[in-house]
């Protein structure tokens, strides 16, 4: 697979917690434990604006927990993080989304008994009729028309326009992943967080899905990306953060990370190559 060219702003040291030129998201001393298990324990981590950053690590490394913490679906025991300089600790999930950080889910969450178009309209950022008061007063049809136009544009881009009036429950697994991503765009995000977007998607669709992920970056968004498939990570990431046992153990461009001994150890185990007694 083709490897992305290095972006100049990422010409920095390859070490955990390194400062970025223009960080959009900064994590400081974030800890989350479940009983005795330290799921997330990150001293400092920055994400460069307008790049695709992959977060990789073995199963149980704390990747999804990190996503949950960042998007307000879980609360850290201590520590803080900020989006565009704004502190987000204790901010509920729906407000995190309103402030421009939208996530998708590892197990795709489409709204099955709403049509594909309605799935997008639910997420529309500007809609006075979405409040009880606005719905009673009426006069939301103008905003609705604009939102619908925007939604159809996005569906067109994601190749879902033919399905606009189908119930989302009728979509295939891959189409659901696309719908989730398309829906996230309706919120008008600055940061899009994709939790394993290629899981369970057939190989043909993976390529087009990855093109859409690049499309998000190219239209100015920052993409955070949890992924297991190393081929996928190599082909689209600008930067890779490796998490193991809750800690950031390495960061760097994908080509460098693949050769990092700490990463190989985390993935394959310490005793690789030793004789079995």
């Amino acid at each position, binding site marked *: 697979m083709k490897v992305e060219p290095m972006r100049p702003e990422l010409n920095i040291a390859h070490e955990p917690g390194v400062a970025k030129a223009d960080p959009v998201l900064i994590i400081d001393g974030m800890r989350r434990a479940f009983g005795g298990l330290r799921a997330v324990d990150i001293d400092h981590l920055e994400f460069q604006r307008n790049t695709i950053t992959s977060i990789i690590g073995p199963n149980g490394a704390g990747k999804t927990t990190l996503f949950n913490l960042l*998007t307000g*679906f879980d609360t850290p025991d201590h520590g803080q993080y900020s989006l565009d300089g704004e502190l987000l600790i204790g901010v*509920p*999930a*729906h*407000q995190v*989304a*309103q402030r421009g950080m*939208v*996530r*998708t*889910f590892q197990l795709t*969450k*489409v*709204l*099955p*008994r*709403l049509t594909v178009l*309605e*799935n997008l*309209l*639910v*997420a*529309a*950022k500007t*809609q006075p*009729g*979405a*409040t*009880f008061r*606005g*719905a*009673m007063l*009426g006069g*939301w049809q103008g905003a*609705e028309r604009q939102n619908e136009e925007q939604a159809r544009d996005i569906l067109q881009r994601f190749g879902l326009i033919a399905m606009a009036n189908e*119930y*989302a*429950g*009728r979509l295939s697994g891959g189409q659901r992943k696309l719908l989730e991503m398309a*829906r*996230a765009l*309706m*919120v008008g995000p600055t940061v899009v967080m994709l939790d394993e977007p290629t899981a369970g998607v057939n190989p043909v669709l993976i390529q087009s899905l990855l093109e859409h992920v690049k499309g998000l970056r190219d239209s100015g968004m920052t993409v955070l990306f949890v992924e297991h498939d190393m081929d996928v990570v190599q082909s689209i990431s600008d930067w890779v953060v490796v998490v193991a046992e809750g800690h950031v153990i390495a960061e760097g461009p994908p080509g460098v990370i693949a050769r990092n001994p700490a990463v190989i150890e985390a993935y394959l185990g310490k005793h690789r190559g030793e004789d079995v007694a």
Partner: protein
Amino acid sequence: MDWMQILAAGVLATIGPVTAGYALSAIGLNLQFGYAGLLNFGHVAFMLVGAYGTAMTVEFGGPLWLGLIVGIVAAVLLGLLLGIPTLRLRADYFAITSIAAAEVLRLVVRSSWSEPLTGGVFGLQGFGGAFHALNPFPTSELYGFGQFVVTGRALWVILVGWALVLLSTLLIARLIKSPWGRVLKAIREDEDATRSLGRNVFAYKLQALMIGGAIAGLAGILFALEQQSLHPDAFQPRITFILYVMVILGGAGSIGGAVLGAAVFNFLFFATDALMARLQANIDWIGAILSPAEAGLIKYVLVGVALMLLMVFRPQGLLRSRDEGRADAS
């Protein structure tokens, strides 16, 4: 056997105030359960506070209009009080809490401790005078044709009841067709997804609980005014479950479903009741094996069978589209 009489019994019950009251309450439940996906197992409590709010206000010398306001406000407040601590819980915990709250409320109302206010087990009577005084129809006159007749007193309650049903349906239709209603449906489908899209799920659920509760409160008031008497044991938990049957039968999450479900349920219920009473009286071998009281119980069996058949052949309810049903299953 007079089939006309049996049909008349079913039809009169279907258009009667009891069906209007059930339909009204089911509309409220449909907003909560059918659209917002709230498993409210304490729906009957909203009817109770609505009815008692009105009756107690009138009992203590307040005018009827004030009683109506108190009843509805009480139902809305119950939604607020029940919802704030419980709507953040998972759906099944909310279901348990709501049924418990409804039973606690009924037991408090019927306790001897609250007798000076609520009449305890003796209930309250005679608070509906002002309502029936507004009746423009002579109360003992009969309206209709053949066996399909109602008294002027009943006609008044029927007209008011179905007008309320119509108004509530229009209100719900306006809300559901708005973006607000779409968010509610999204919450029913997946709370976390809706939250991730920037919607305050808790606030929407609370609003649905309060609005549905207000409509149920109105239904409770209608029952109380119609019967001119109020008794705590009329608000048993099974009322809630009968309402669920109606909502699911008509099609949970369809605008007219709750009303249709209430009508079909009550028609089946009262027509089979009339049928069994006549079969028991007129056919010897049935009379030999069933006492009149036992024949009266057969209606529950027949209604159960009829509902099972409907669910087997139309699991998505009478009014919901098949496509929507299929999207649900996949």
